[in-house]
């Protein structure tokens, strides 16, 4: 139950002081920039210049507390930043990790880890963009993951593989979940430990990363751990409790991805409205046709609703509580609404939606993928059903 005293503002086009400079920044990376990247081989598509620019801008350090040289801003503002990026031709996928993965260090890291890494991450000098959780054999059934980290003397030795780990080739740090002891019947995710992996060292021996050629450009890779040795101080928090930390992290993740989806919706909405007013068929702009206008209006309404639930989740987080299934709800509703708007925009553009130069098809692919990652529809609905509505797990 949400705190009865918690309030939310009725306007949601707030924080222009963040939106305006970010829009200007993103204008430097128009559709042509992103299309050119997609023409390249899978391992050369990373939007390095865009990410460099974002790192230098300081926006990605929004959530890191001021005591570690971050901006110490609210999650609401972090969401505004991502929403703005996605409302343009840009996609924050290659940089979004920098904004929230370090939260696991803020909450659970040792003082030494915090001092060593957080100021660099806040400044954009140390890149923490990657996490390795899912595995090919077990997918979302994380409790069954097969990657192990075995303690031998003063090191943990990691063996196994991870799939769909984004940005591993462009990150200094990687958040890894690996099994250090068997789970218990009551808590099968017990015994999973969170590690902070120094990628430069790891890629020299014990870890290999292979780019995946995929329909969207998120820098996805498959990882193989072959006897990678990690120092004992690579452990984040307590050994065996990593999954709980990861679950907390996914709540922030969901709220931030919901913001990305809302930004995509704004992109599609603007494009659809403009094109519908300009395009003349049968002697008048197609916007006069309810077959064109109604799907845009309907999707717009869904988007406005989704933004409210996203803002609510952020407001709960910013009041000092973890929002739990509310975060799942925010991501689910935002991604559903974005997909509806993407499709309305696609239909409005007709054949031109397929033409790459319009960027509709690229953003449309991104919107579809975002429904499934990083937390997919079934995972989100299950979280809501089990942890909010009191139904049993269906699997």
């Amino acid at each position, binding site marked *: 139950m949400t705190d009865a005293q918690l309030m939310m503002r009725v306007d949601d086009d707030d924080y222009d002081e963040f939106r305006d400079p970010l829009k200007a920044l993103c204008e430097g990376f128009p559709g042509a920039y992103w299309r050119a990247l997609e023409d390249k081989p899978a391992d050369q598509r990373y939007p390095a210049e865009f990410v460099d620019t974002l790192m230098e801008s300081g926006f990605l350090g929004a959530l890191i507390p001021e005591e570690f040289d971050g901006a110490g801003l609210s999650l609401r503002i972090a969401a505004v930043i991502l929403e703005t990026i996605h409302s343009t031709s840009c996609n924050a996928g290659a940089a979004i990790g920098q904004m929230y993965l370090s939260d696991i260090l803020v909450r659970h890291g040792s003082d030494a880890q915090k001092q060593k890494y957080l100021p660099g991450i806040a400044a954009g000098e140390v890149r923490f963009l990657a996490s390795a959780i899912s595995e090919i054999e077990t997918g979302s059934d994380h409790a069954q993951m097969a990657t192990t980290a075995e303690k031998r003397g003063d090191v943990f030795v990691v063996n196994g593989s991870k799939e769909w780990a984004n940005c591993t080739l462009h990150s200094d740090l990687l958040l890894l979940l690996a099994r250090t002891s068997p789970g218990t019947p009551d808590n099968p995710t017990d015994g999973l430990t969170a590690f902070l992996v120094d990628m430069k060292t790891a890629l020299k021996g014990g870890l290999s990363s292979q780019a995946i050629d995929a329909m969207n450009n998120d820098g996805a890779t498959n990882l193989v751990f072959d006897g990678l040795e990690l120092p004992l101080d690579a452990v984040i928090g307590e050994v065996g409790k990593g999954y709980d930390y990861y679950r907390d992290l996914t709540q922030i993740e969901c709220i931030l991805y919901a913001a990305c989806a809302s930004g995509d919706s704004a992109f599609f909405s603007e494009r659809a409205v403009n094109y519908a007013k300009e395009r003349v068929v049968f002697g008048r702009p197609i916007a006069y046709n309810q077959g064109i206008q109604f799907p845009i*209006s309907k999707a717009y309404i869904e988007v406005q609703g989704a933004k409210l639930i996203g803002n609510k989740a952020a407001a709960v987080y910013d009041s000092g509580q973890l929002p739990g299934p509310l975060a799942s709800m925010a991501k689910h509703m935002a991604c559903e609404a974005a997909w509806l708007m993407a499709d309305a925009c696609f239909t409005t553009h007709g054949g031109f939606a397929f033409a790459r130069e319009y960027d509709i098809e690229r953003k449309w692919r991104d919107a579809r993928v975002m429904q499934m990652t990083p937390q997919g529809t079934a995972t989100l609905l299950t979280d*809501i059903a089990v942890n909010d509505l009191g139904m049993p797990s269906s699997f």
Partner: protein
Amino acid sequence: MSEQTVGFALGEDYSEYRREVAKVCEDYPPSYWEYLENQPPSGSYPTKFVEALTKTGFLSALIPAKYGGLGLPVRGGAAILETIHASGCTAGPCHAQMYTMGTILRHGSDAQKDKYLPKIAKGELRLQAFGVTEPTTGSDTTQLKTRADKVDGGYMLNGQKVWISRAGHSDLMLLLARTTPADQVEKRAHGVSTFLVDMRVAKENGMVITPIDAMINHNTTEIFFDDVFIPEDSLVGQEGRGFRYILDGMNAERCLVSSETIGNGRYFLRESIKFANENKRFGRQMSATQSVQFSIAQAYAQLETADLMVRKTAAMFDAGLKCGAEANMSKILSGEAVWACAQVALSVFGESGMAKSSSIQRKWRESRTARNSPISPNMVLNFVGQHVLGLPRSY
């Protein structure tokens, strides 16, 4: 007041009122409503329920204290109506007593306010009927054909209204009628006036009310005016400006009926989750089946989203901000959400939900109606397309 300073509560608001309302509703179980549905339309009014509510003073929630009401903002009324519906009861037969007076309050003369509001607040006078819709013009409200022709000492009414709920159980009616022919006004909405008609007198002067037997028990009627004289002081505000007066009342109405819809959604979800958790099929709880569980979680996410839009609308209305878009969006979002809840409830309950003794089928019928009334969803999409997105008028 600017949007930046207006906020709304995210948790359970008006808890004390909610508790009191729920207590009153306990005395009116599903069998009470089933009994009423089995009566002919003329005898199906929930007189006892309405009397009990009137005694609590909740129906005068929105009337200022100086006229004897509770003086609550629209959000307070919304919380009351939501609770009535979440309890399994329906406020449809009496909710208009709460908000129809708003037009008098905002646009009536001091004499009208002093004469009517205290008695409406006490429940001595029933202002439950809102005469707008006509059989040949439907949503094309400004083209209505009922005439109010100026005569000595007043106006002469001629014409017909349809789908006027509760007219047989109301002493007063707010009526929209044309005072200047449509071809003699500059704007479509001009030349239409609002009247407060004393139906007790009008019935003696040629006004005939005929009940309509309908799918849901809203005590709705057709009304025929054949040279019905009403005195001059029946006019509300300025002659010819009546359309504008009812528009802002409509925003309050949309907000309030949307909150009833939210209440129905909560009823469906509570009953569905209970039933699905308690009943086993194929050797396990029904709620462990994804088709059941995911549908419930999806409907719940939609309902929570719609609830925020309703809260936002109320906050804006109460602060005197323009809220036409939000009121309309509330209607669509709550209508879609409750329908998702209603459909899953009927599926979960199966045949047992279809029995006349079950409130599931009754509320399912109510919910379908709520998606069409009091405004067509197509008119909402038109509004958003035209006035929010800047698309051309399509009709």
